[in-house]
């Protein structure tokens, strides 16, 4: 039994009962090392007996953690029902999904324990985040233990705690130090001063029990207490204890004999003494503090020898555990073995999505360059650069790839040099150095072209076309990518061929053959779906959404963006979700759905963790433009601040917000300032073949009188308007579905057209534009100009506003207030207000009656 843990255990027991009835939750159980977190979770697991399924996993204190260690533990437990969990070629997200399915819909609730999260690798943290966000609908209680005193502000666990902490299904519990009274109970008959012991140990449960077991007058530290206890063992058992201490978590009993020559009796004695615990085929320390104390105490030569013997044992295993091998190789100071094992451990970690671990393995190899040889050093640097790129450490990626380039430049390997150059170009672009990036990729293409057609050249051409597409140099990119596609086919490189077609589709959408581009993208999306390749599907959806959005092909873009968001949420791809939402904000702005534009934009800012990325620029640009068109304060400032944060954005990300600044000046009667604002980027646009950038930037330059007519190859509605064809322009905008632009075109026309524009501006709430039109009509002497927006007439018998109708419709579909708040991006409190207004207008007092009344009114069909 455990002292002073009854309340904690009762709380956990209650949460497990809730899980039984389908209300799952996640507990973050914090406490310092030795406070008794494991004892609490073990006690809980024992007490539930057969009434719950127990999944038990732990993270290791390996110098580089084994990827997804707790999931390996689940898979190794024959009772878990998860034995095939980590088969080769299974994506991490699928694995997580399998565990999640195990947590759902069982008759017995599931107690899932993940121990020592402060040692977790990235993959495990992803897993905990994945489960934590979805635990509500499971029959599971997930308990994750960690040492809160070891989680500093930069610890990777901190971010996960921050993300999961505010959720309603997350609970934080502490394992507190023992009181003096509890220490006295533990001391029992022993001649120990309980108060002095409490002072010494701060009530740390492990420390207290070690001191009592050491049977010495109070030792100064917990290490001394542990060693005093070990010191009382005989020679044989002590060697067993030492051998187990070099294994980070536990050691196979079969290995103990081989490592030390120890007898069965010796092993039994260590387990009997309470220093070690035997569980199944393994021996382990009762606590990591004790293991570390013993390992530290072994003389250097013997410790190195133990690690070396351990290495040879592990090497003989049927399926060697690479992370474990690399750990012992590093500890054995056996550089040659580090060099043997760490690269494979790195590849394995990378495949499991544990990129930070892969980096650590590659770095340990690269600290012994003399053993590796220059060519392999360069290869490892390229692999390391790839890993750095994935975790968004672009500066280090650039450094490693550049070192590899330097090596190959000195030698004769043109093909390797070119491959390294391709790797340099990526980080250059991400770091905002687009000109260097294009120079680098040009050199790679040139070098490979000299060697004749190859798979490498096909890849370099594809990469090059991608960068030129991003710069909106569409015609050039198109020529390059077509060569890439043809060469990829010649060499049977289907992956390159697929990527090349993605670029082709995207370029066609943006530079003038939008329907052909859409067809290409839809075709390869279907291919990716048939091939069950979620990465490719997601990539295509992103291109369809942003490319379709830029070309104002709204229906196709919106459905791709919505689909991309659903998929991104399921896979925890926060960046893709934010990017897609930012495009929904921009599209909603252009379509005159300004409330929705605001909602999407605010959501992007609230949920993205990466600071001001491209998604934030697009979202804030849309929000700023809504303010400008409404005449609300802060629009110009928001756009200016956002653009200032990233001087190196590509044209495609900045032209729309810039046009917002130009419009603000025009609406404020200062059109003469527009050319200064836009001329540089208008010049950049003329170097590209992006029709819409040329069109919109050109339009505002024309409005300010800086140009007389449309530039070549400008998007049609803008070109018409710049040519003075306002009626045709309005018609074109109407077809595309941009009401504000329709009215803006009409406002260039005669009195009748201006009178036609007014109600559109008024109903959008576009006050500044409406005022300009009214002023012009007054100037030319028009009488009876309609006054501002008349009070909205309410179209339905109960007098509900449009927002209330929307809420009522969702109520009728069975949603709770919280779900409606999520759906409409409103605060829950705001929804409650709408609901009570609906009740009072419908003269009802319950939700059910409101829904019945809604059906009678026929309002739910809307």
């Amino acid at each position, binding site marked *: 039994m455990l002292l002073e843990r009854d309340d904690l255990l009762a709380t956990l027991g209650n949460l497990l009962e809730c899980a039984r009835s389908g209300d799952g939750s996640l507990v973050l159980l914090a406490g310092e090392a030795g406070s008794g977190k494991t004892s609490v979770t073990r006690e809980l697991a024992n007490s539930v007996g057969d009434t719950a399924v127990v999944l038990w996993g732990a993270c290791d204190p390996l110098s580089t953690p084994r990827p997804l260690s707790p999931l390996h533990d689940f898979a190794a437990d024959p009772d878990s029902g998860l034995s095939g969990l980590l088969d080769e070629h299974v994506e991490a997200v699928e694995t997580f999904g399998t565990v999640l399915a195990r947590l759902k819909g069982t008759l017995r609730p599931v107690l899932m324990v993940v121990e020592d999260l402060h040692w977790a690798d990235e993959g495990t943290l992803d897993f905990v985040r994945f489960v934590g966000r979805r635990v509500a609908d499971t029959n599971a209680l997930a308990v994750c233990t960690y040492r809160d005193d070891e989680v500093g502000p930069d610890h990777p666990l901190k971010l996960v705690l921050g993300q999961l902490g505010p959720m309603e299904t997350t609970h934080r519990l502490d394992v507190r130090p023992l009181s003096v009274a509890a220490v006295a109970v533990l001391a029992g008959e022993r001649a120990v001063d309980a108060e002095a012991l409490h002072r010494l140990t701060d009530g740390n449960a492990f420390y207290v029990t070690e001191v009592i077991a050491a049977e010495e007058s109070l030792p100064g530290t917990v290490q001394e207490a542990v060693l005093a206890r070990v010191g009382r063992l005989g020679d044989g058992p002590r060697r067993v204890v030492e051998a187990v201490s070099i294994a980070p978590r536990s050691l196979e009993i079969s290995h103990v004999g081989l490592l030390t020559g120890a007898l069965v009796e010796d092993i039994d004695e260590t387990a009997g003494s309470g220093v070690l615990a035997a569980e199944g085929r393994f021996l382990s320390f009762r606590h990591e503090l004790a293991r570390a104390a013993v390992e530290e105490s072994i003389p250097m030569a013997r410790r190195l020898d133990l690690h070396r013997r351990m290495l040879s044992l592990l090497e003989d295993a049927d399926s060697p555990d690479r992370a474990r091998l690399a750990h012992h190789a590093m500890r054995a100071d056996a550089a040659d073995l580090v060099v043997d094992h760490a690269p494979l451990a790195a590849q394995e970690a990378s495949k499991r999505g544990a990129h930070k671990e892969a980096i650590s393995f590659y770095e340990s190899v690269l600290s012994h360059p003399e053993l590796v040889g220059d060519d392999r050093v360069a290869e490892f640097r390229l692999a390391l650069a790839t890993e750095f790129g994935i975790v968004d450490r672009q500066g280090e990626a650039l450094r490693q790839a550049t070192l590899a380039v330097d090596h190959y430049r000195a030698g004769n390997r043109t093909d390797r040099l070119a491959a390294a150059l391709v790797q340099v170009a990526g980080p250059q672009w991400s770091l905002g150095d687009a000109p260097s990036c294009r120079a680098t990729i040009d050199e790679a293409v040139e070098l490979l072209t000299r060697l004749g057609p190859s798979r490498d050249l096909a890849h370099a051409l594809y990469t090059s076309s991608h960068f030129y597409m991003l710069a909106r140099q569409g015609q050039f990119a198109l020529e390059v990518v077509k060569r890439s596609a043809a060469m990829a086919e010649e060499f049977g490189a289907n992956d390159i061929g697929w990527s090349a077609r993605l670029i082709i589709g995207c370029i066609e959408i943006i530079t003038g053959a939008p329907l052909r581009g859409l067809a290409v993208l839809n075709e390869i999306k279907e291919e990716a779906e048939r091939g069950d390749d979620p990465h490719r599907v997601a990539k295509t959806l992103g291109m369809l959404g942003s490319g379709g959005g830029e070309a104002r092909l709204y229906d196709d873009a919106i459905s791709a963006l919505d689909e991309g968001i659903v998929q991104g949420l399921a896979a925890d791809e926060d960046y893709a979700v934010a990017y897609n939402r930012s495009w929904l904000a921009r599209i909603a702005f252009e379509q005159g759905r300004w409330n929705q534009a*605001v909602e999407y934009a*605010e959501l992007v800012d609230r949920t993205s963790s990466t600071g001001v990325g491209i998604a934030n620029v697009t979202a804030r640009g849309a*929000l700023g433009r*809504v*303010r400008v068109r*409404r*005449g*609300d*304060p*802060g629009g110009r400032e928001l756009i200016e601040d956002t653009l200032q944060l990233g001087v190196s954005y590509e044209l495609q990300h900045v032209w729309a917000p810039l046009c917002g600044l130009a419009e603000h000046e025009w609406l404020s009667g200062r059109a003469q300032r527009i050319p200064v604002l836009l001329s540089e980027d208008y010049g950049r646009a003329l170097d590209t073949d992006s029709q819409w950038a040329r069109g919109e930037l050109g339009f505002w330059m024309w409005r300010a009188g800086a140009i007389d007519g449309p530039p070549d190859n400008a998007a049609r509605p803008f070109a018409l308007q710049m040519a003075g064809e306002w009626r045709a322009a309005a018609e074109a905008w109407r077809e595309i579905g941009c009401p504000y632009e329709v009215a803006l075109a009409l406002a260039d026309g005669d009195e009748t057209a201006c009178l036609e524009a007014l109600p559109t501006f008024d109903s959008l709430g576009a*006050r500044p534009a409406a005022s300009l039109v009214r002023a012009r009509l007054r100037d030319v002497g028009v009488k009876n100009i309609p006054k*501002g927006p*008349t*009070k909205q007439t309410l179209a339905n018998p109960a007098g509900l*506003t449009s*927002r209330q109708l929307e809420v009522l419709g969702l109520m009728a579909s069975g949603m709770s207030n919280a779900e409606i708040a999520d759906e409409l991006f*409103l*605060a*829950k*409190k*705001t929804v*409650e*207000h*709408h609901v009570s*207004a609906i009740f009072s207008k419908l003269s009802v007092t319950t939700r059910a009656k409101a829904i019945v009344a809604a059906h009678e009114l026929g309002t739910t069909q809307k």
Partner: protein
Amino acid sequence: MPRYLVERSFPDGLEIPTTSEGLKACLGVVDGNTGEQVTWIRSFVTDDHQKTFCIYDGPTPEAIRRAADVSEMPVDAISEISVLDPYFYVGGQS
């Protein structure tokens, strides 16, 4: 938090009786604002009751608009404002 002046029009005239009904109407607006973290400071009403000038604290103009939507109040224009005090400069002329 920024301060805003919100102009509203009531073509039929704004009538808030000085009774418990009026109190309820005002508190309803206050309550409706809390979801958006918007605070109504005070309002000025023209003598014909057709226009109001209302001072609000709120995080963004969008939050002011959503709060108005909840309370079913019209919005003509929103301006961000700060205080100019007639005697602010008096002490500075020494």
